[in-house]
């Protein structure tokens, strides 16, 4: 039979269509199975999913005033770690029954295989310095706050860095039972005792009354509330720093244990 041009064209068309289908099927097979992958030089791998994190470096931040550490065991401090001469004792507990704490001054020395660190602790009349074995202390916590008590202006001011975060008028010691001047620190906080004289919250410090050396609990100066707010501001106490009850409650939210105390 003679093939007309039209028949040839339609045959060609059919052949092309068939080829197209076959190619399409081949492509489908390749796509679906993916086994005959492209060579490494031409492979096209997808980008991976984006990370759920985008961390940035966090710089160190301002230097703390000091560190405080709890005392794990009562020890006798040394003037110098290499010599036995003592600089005073540090007991494990405060007279109030809480864990005693010391300020860590940031010097360490290895002596005969043990690490010793220099600390500041409650002394008479001021805080004392001495060296203790590192193992006598617990973990370090940075101190970033300072309470400054001005005995002339009868004010207490809490500083955090350069910022003033709290200020109030206070009652301080009388002339015969003064609040001692110097550098101390806050080492405990008492609450839920029943004693209106001390208000709702009382803080213990390492400051000691110089006049009342026989005081039963060591004669330590506290910072507390009062049932006589009418006496504030004034020179009225046995050495303690008193403030109105709403103020001590406010201060307790801002002043952590270990806060430095400077009395001028």
């Amino acid at each position, binding site marked *: 039979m003679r093939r007309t041009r039209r028949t040839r064209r339609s045959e060609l068309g059919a052949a092309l269509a068939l080829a197209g289908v076959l190619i399409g099927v081949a492509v489908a097979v390749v796509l679906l199975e993916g086994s005959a992958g492209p060579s490494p030089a031409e492979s096209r791998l997808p*980008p*991976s*999913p*984006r*990370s*759920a*994190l*985008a*961390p*940035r*470096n*966090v710089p*160190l931040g301002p*230097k*703390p005033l000091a*560190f405080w550490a*709890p005392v794990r065991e009562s020890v006798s401090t040394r003037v110098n770690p290499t010599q036995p001469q003592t600089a005073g004792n540090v007991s494990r507990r405060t*007279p*109030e*029954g*809480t*864990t005693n*704490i010391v300020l860590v001054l*940031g010097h*360490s020395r290895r002596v005969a295989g043990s*690490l010793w*660190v220099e600390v500041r602790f409650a002394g008479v009349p001021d805080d004392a310095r001495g060296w203790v074995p*590192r*193992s006598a202390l*617990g*973990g*370090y916590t*940075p101190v970033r706050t300072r309470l400054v008590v001005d005995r002339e202006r009868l004010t207490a001011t809490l500083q955090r860095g350069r910022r003033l975060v709290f200020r109030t008028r206070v009652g301080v010691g009388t002339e015969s*039972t003064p609040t001692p001047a110097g550098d101390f620190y806050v*080492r*405990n*906080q*008492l609450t*839920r*005792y*029943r*004693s209106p*004289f*001390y208000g709702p919250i*009382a803080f213990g410090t390492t400051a000691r*009354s110089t006049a009342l050396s026989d*005081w*039963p*609990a*060591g*004669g*330590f*100066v*506290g910072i*507390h509330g009062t049932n006589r707010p009418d006496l504030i501001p004034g020179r009225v*106490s*046995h*050495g*303690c720093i008193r403030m109105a009850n709403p103020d001590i409650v406010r201060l307790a939210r801002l002043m952590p*244990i270990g806060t430095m105390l400077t009395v001028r």
Partner: protein
Amino acid sequence: MESKLTLEAVDHDGAIAEALDELTGGTRADFLRKAVIGGAATGAALATPALAKERNTKKDIAILRFDLNLEYLQAAMYTEAERLRQLKPRTLGWAHVVGANERGHVKAIRGLLGRDAVKSPKFNFRGVTEDDSVFTETAVAFEDLTAALLKTQAAQVDSRGVLAALVSLHSVEARHAAWIRHIAGIVPAAYAVDKPTSKARVVRLVDSTNFVTSVPRTKGRRRPGYTG
């Protein structure tokens, strides 16, 4: 001039939007409204595929919490070491850089966990942050083990985004490890292929250090005995 064609106009059944949603992680409505075919913004948005924000699965939360605790420990240790300045200069330099990295990890993982984040434990570093050779030895152990742990976790996580995150952190921990080993004078890469390790192994290391401590009892209820 013909107006630009938006996706909404051609995405008859939302299948395209579904696919793009997974790519861009944005809200579908926003993307459809703003996206112009062939526009530069669309190209940029699609250039780095992101996953739509999903809630973390329980497994992923557990893994991220464990990592967060490990990062808390490392961040606290290196921060304290830098503050106390008792290390040799090169080690101090390491603590400075790596501390910033680890503090960054803490912040980022806390952000990812949101309300599922855990608080930092309290630590007592027992002099390790104050003695150069003990610090270096301990840092090597922690960096090596963290990198090993992240491998195991990567094969366990549910979310691809969290997987990508672990991958990006893992190689940084390995950089830390090689660097501190180099400072310590030991070979930065001991094996051709690093092995994974288990969570249990890491727990054993942390326990052996006794770094995690209880909060000291500095608050009490006794009647004050202050001078008054």
